[in-house]
Every structure is written in C-alpha cells, then in structure tokens.
C-alpha cells in the first residue's frame, strides 16, 4: 500500500519509513503541516500516518478536518505524544480513524495500518466468517472447525470474531484489549497471551494445521496460510 507519513521528528520518520519499505509498502514523507496537507490533498494514498503536533501553523487536527471537509476518505492514523483519553477522543472526532500514542512499537503501527486499510475495503454486514476450515456463524453464534463443533465462552467468541474479521493480519495485544475487552489502558499483565492460548487450545489443539499464530514482537495472527 501507499502511505503518507507526516511527521517532524527525523528519527521517528526514518524508523517508520524503513519499516514500511521493508514490509513491502511505499511511503511518502512530509515534515510539516503545509507539505503534508498538500501531498494528502493531491496524491492518492491508501493511508495517512499523521503526527498530532506539527511545526508551523497547520497541525495534525487541522489537516484531518480540511481533508474530511474536502471529501477525502483516506484512512488516517494519528500519532501523538498526548495520551489523554480526551486527546484521543478529539483526534477521532476530528475525523481520524485510529490513534496511537508515542512511543510505539512498529508492529503496532503496521498492524493498525493494516486493519485500517482492510476495513475501508471490506466492512459489511457479514453473517458468516471463514478462515480455512474454521467457520463462525454470527447469527447462531456457532463455531465449527472441520466437522467438529467448538464451544466457546462469550468472551472467547468475541475474541475469535475479532481475529477472524482481521484474518491474515497481525493483531496486537493492545488492539485486542481495546476491541475485545474495551480496555483503553495497559493492565500491565500478559493475560492476553493466556486468553489467546486458551482459545488456541480450543481451535487448534486437535488439528494438524495451527491457525492462530504468535507474531514475534507484534501480536497474533489468524491465518490460513503457512
């Protein structure tokens, strides 16, 4: 995908650009609000990564508002050193699609970018989810793998649903906390791993091919590919 990065810190810029290139994406960069606004308005991007505070008179929120007003629907991920929930809400209200607090892990950024671009593509009223031979019926709330029924607790069901909706993408622990448990804070435990391993026990243990895999330094992925 083609990504625009608007960020004034050089180190962060290099880190993100290098990471994006290495994972097979192309990226443009602007180091101030004016250039960022110009590029975002004139070039077609799949996603924009935008620093909340930028040098000059145009800050991140102003760019978002201007783009949305002009009818641009490009997914925007806001980067910010301001972690307050209020700031987060402001960013999302202004028209951002996701919010990531600095400092962040690159895996987290990439996973969220992936989620954003996919969402803008699919996201529809689905009643069935399928990954390889794992099937989930959202109406009857039944989960099967192959021809075997899998009994899940409500929360496990929600967890699996999120993973299946983001199949073949990396999903980070924070994304799971936010979307499955609605926890917008760091509970300082590795409990997500425990929940995942319990889920893995149910969907993968008796099968030759594991679907739910751990991605080092990033999170998890539910994938049909090896």
């Amino acid at each position, binding site marked *: 995908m083609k990504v625009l990065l608007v960020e004034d810190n050089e180190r962060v810029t290099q880190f993100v650009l290098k990471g994006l290139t290495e994972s097979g994406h192309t990226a443009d960069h602007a180091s101030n609000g004016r250039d960022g606004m110009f590029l975002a308005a004139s070039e077609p991007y799949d996603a924009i990564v935008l620093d909340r505070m930028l040098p000059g008179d145009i800050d991140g929120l102003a760019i978002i508002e201007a783009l949305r007003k002009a009818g641009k629907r490009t997914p925007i991920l806001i980067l910010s050193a301001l972690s307050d*929930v209020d700031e987060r809400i402001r960013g999302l209200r202004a028209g951002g699609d996701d919010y990531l607090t600095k*400092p962040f892990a690159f895996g987290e950024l990439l996973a969220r970018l992936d989620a954003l671009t996919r969402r803008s593509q699919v996201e529809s009223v689905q009643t069935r989810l399928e990954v390889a031979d794992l099937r989930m019926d959202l109406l009857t709330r039944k989960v099967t793998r192959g021809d075997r029924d899998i009994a899940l607790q409500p929360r496990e069901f929600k967890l699996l649903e999120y993973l299946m909706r983001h199949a073949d993408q990396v999903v980070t622990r924070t994304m799971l906390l936010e979307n499955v448990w609605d*926890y917008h804070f760091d509970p300082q435990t590795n409990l997500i791993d425990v929940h995942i391993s319990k889920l893995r026990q149910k969907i993968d243990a008796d099968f030759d091919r594991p679907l739910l895999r751990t991605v080092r330094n990033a999170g998890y992925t539910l994938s049909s590919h090896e």
Partner: protein
Amino acid sequence: MNEQGAARVSLPEAGPRHLRALRSSALKLSVGYIGLGLLALVLFAAPLWYAWRVTIEDSRMAILQADAQRLAQVFRREGPRALAGLLSERVGLQIANERLLLFADPQLKPLAGNIDRWPAQVPLTPGFNTLRLQLDGHETEVALVHLLLPGGYHLLVGRDTGFYVPLERRFWYALLGAAVILSTFGALGGILIRRALMARIHLVRQTVSAIMLGDLTHRLPAEPEGDELNTLSQTINRMLNQIEQLVHGVRNVSNAVAHDLRTPLAELRVRLEELSLTRPAPEHTFAEIDAAVSDVDRVISIFNALLRLAEIDSGMRRSGFVPVDLAEIAAAAVDFYQPAGEIKGARLQLVRADTAPVRGDPVLLAQAISNLIDNALKYTPAGGNILVSVSRRADQCIELAVADSGPGIAEGDRSKVTERFYRGDASRGTPGVGLGLSLVEAVARLHGTMLELEDNHPGLRASMVLGQDTRPIERPATAVPKPGELQHEPVYL
C-alpha cells in the same frame, strides 16, 4: 540562621518595596495619630478659651460698672471735690494698677485720676467702650465705662486689659507646649511601633528566607494565645506545615520515580553496554535487544501510569462522566482476569447486582477494578479466594468491593499503600510499580468517594461506595469511540 545569607536570597525585588511600604504606613499611622491628638487638643482648648473670654469680659464689665456706680454715688452725695479726692487717694494708694480712672469737668479737663488727659477716642456719649489707648508711652487695649454725671462731669472707669496679655500668652504657650509634647510622643510612639513591627516582620522574613533556601523545618515564633500578628504567624505556620507535607510527598514520589525508573534504565544500560563490549553471536544479540526493548517498555509503562495519575488528579476527567453500569464493568474485569486466577490456583468469583448504574468514567472505573483484582491476585496464595462484588446497599448506594484471602495489610500500613510507589514488605519480589492502589484511590477521589481498606479475616477487603445514578443508561460501558465510529463527522474544536 545566617542573616546575611538570608538577606541575600530574601525576596530580591519585593523586599525593599515592602520595607518602603511599611515605612510609609508606619509614618502615615503616626502622622494620623498626631493629627488626631492635635485636633482633640484644639477641640478641648477652644471652648475653654471661649468660656474664659466671655466669662472674664462679662465679669470685668460688671465690676467696672459697679465701680463706676459707686463713684457716681460719692459724686451725687458729696460733690465733685469729694470724688476727685477719693480718686486721687485711690490712685495714690497704687492698688490695682490696671484700673484706669479719670474724672473730668464738662470741658473734659481732668480733675483727678491716673489718665493725664481725656482720650480723644472716647465718645462723649456715655457707655461701654473697648479701645486702644496710648498710656504711659505704650499702646494697650482698655475697656472703659463712661458715665455722664450731673452738672456735665465725666467719669471714666476702665481697665487695662493689656495687663492680662501675659496670661493669655501663657495659655497659648501651654497649648503649644501640649501640642509639641503630643507630636513628640506621637512620633516616638510611631517609631517604636514601627520598630517593634519591623523586628517581627524581620523575623518572618528571616524564616521565609530560610525556607526559600530549602530548609522547610523553620517555623515562625507563635504563642498559642497572642495578638493579631501571632494569629497571622500561626496561620502561616499551618500553611508551612501543609507545604512541607506536600514537598515531602513530592520528594517521596521523585525518589520513588528515580528508583523505579533507574532500575530498568540501569538494566537497560548494562545490557546495551555488554552487547557493545562483548559483541556476542547474532542470536544472543537479538535476544538481548528484545530484553532491552522490554526494559524500555517498563519505563514507558511507569511514565504512563504517572501521567494517568496526574491526569486524574487534575480532575479534568470529570467532564467525561457518563452513565455506566458498574456491574458490567466488574463482570468484564473478572472475565479478563479469570485465567490468571486459574493459573494461580485461586478462585475468582463475582457477585453482582443485576444493574448498578453510576455516573463515572468507564475507562478509569475499569482500570480501578482491574487494578484491585490484579492486586488481590498478586497476594492471594494458591487455593485462596477472591470475591468481587457489586451490590446495591440499603441506602441505594452502590458498593464495589474486592476481597481476598491473602496476607492483608497491617492496619498501620493501610494509609500508606495508596501512596505513590509504596510497596509493602510482602510485595517485595512481586512484579509491579507500586502505583496500582494509588490509582484506585485517585479514581475513587475523582468519583467523589474513598477507597476503604478493611480486614477481611484473613485478607484485605478494598471497597468504594458510589452514588446510584437514577438516569437511564444510554450507552453502556464505553465513552471512548471505537476507531472509525465517529469518522467523517468533523467537529470543530
């Protein structure tokens, strides 16, 4: 206390200005008092002076009239010669030098008396006159009674009022003297008051300077029962106590921050330095780098916890209060921590009311509950019990409680555990930053309640009571928009 040192640091700009202000205020005060004293003096002297004038002049005239009538009687009974003789005798006796007498014939030729000729200013009609006369070579004021006697004779009986001038002068001198004494004492009093005031203010300034140098143990001298300045000193001392406590708290926190941040930073440094020195095989290097990243994550999480505490303490989050169901939040937290209980071999249970509507910040309440559960899990031994309960009390308030069967907290330590970075003896060696309970306490405070810690026999029971929200819950459990949920509806902030 080194006075010079104190003077050097003391309020460089404000000091002299304060001094000037005080000086002028002491000056104004004493000038005011002196003026008031003088006014009192004048108000006292003026009626006295007036009474004196009136009484003396009236009685003087009466005496002169009586004297004149007496002499007129002599004239009527015994004739001009007898009167002239009487007058000459009286003048000759030289009693009452101030008395002026003149007996003159119809042609105004003096027949007897101590005035050598008829004063030109005296009108020829009888009556009472006050005039200035040239007498014995000096001019003086006289009061005269002029009688017209049968046969055209004139009689003047008068009094040299100049005789009383020295007395009057003495009166004025006395008044002036009183004024001078008053002013002197007033000024002296002003100076003394100012000096006493300055001495005490100097003491205050010294103390304040010492405090500004960093020694917060200094206090202003103050007796339990004293004057207004004493009361002021006591108030300032109370303020200083509070400041000292705050500074102490801040110092504790920064020490704790220093310690808790330094430990992961030190580990990080050692790790990186070792890598740079030993240059181990790539696999080992990567493992070390991963460990270094998690060291950094630890530092970041401490920062985040501190920032969040500061954010809560600032009270700004109250604006984000929405109706939430505390029972739902607790259920989600129990659900989240269930696997941890299983791993530990402790039983984590939830007892909940059907609904527990409160007004609050859902994110913070969730964090508070999960901190309490996390804390309970940490200290509960295998086979122990943790009971999370959300119940509606008889008074319709909602109580959230997390009770464990761990070692509990000694009564004396209960107030300390909510201090930032405090970690009880029992917690040594368990992971954690020591901010968990202080965050819960801060969240409770933000919601207008308190975190209560009680003995659970055995174990600890942590609880807080929130007021029930009577409004219906519109949007349960979340105030934070899901990514994209609010998308494309710009709100201009």
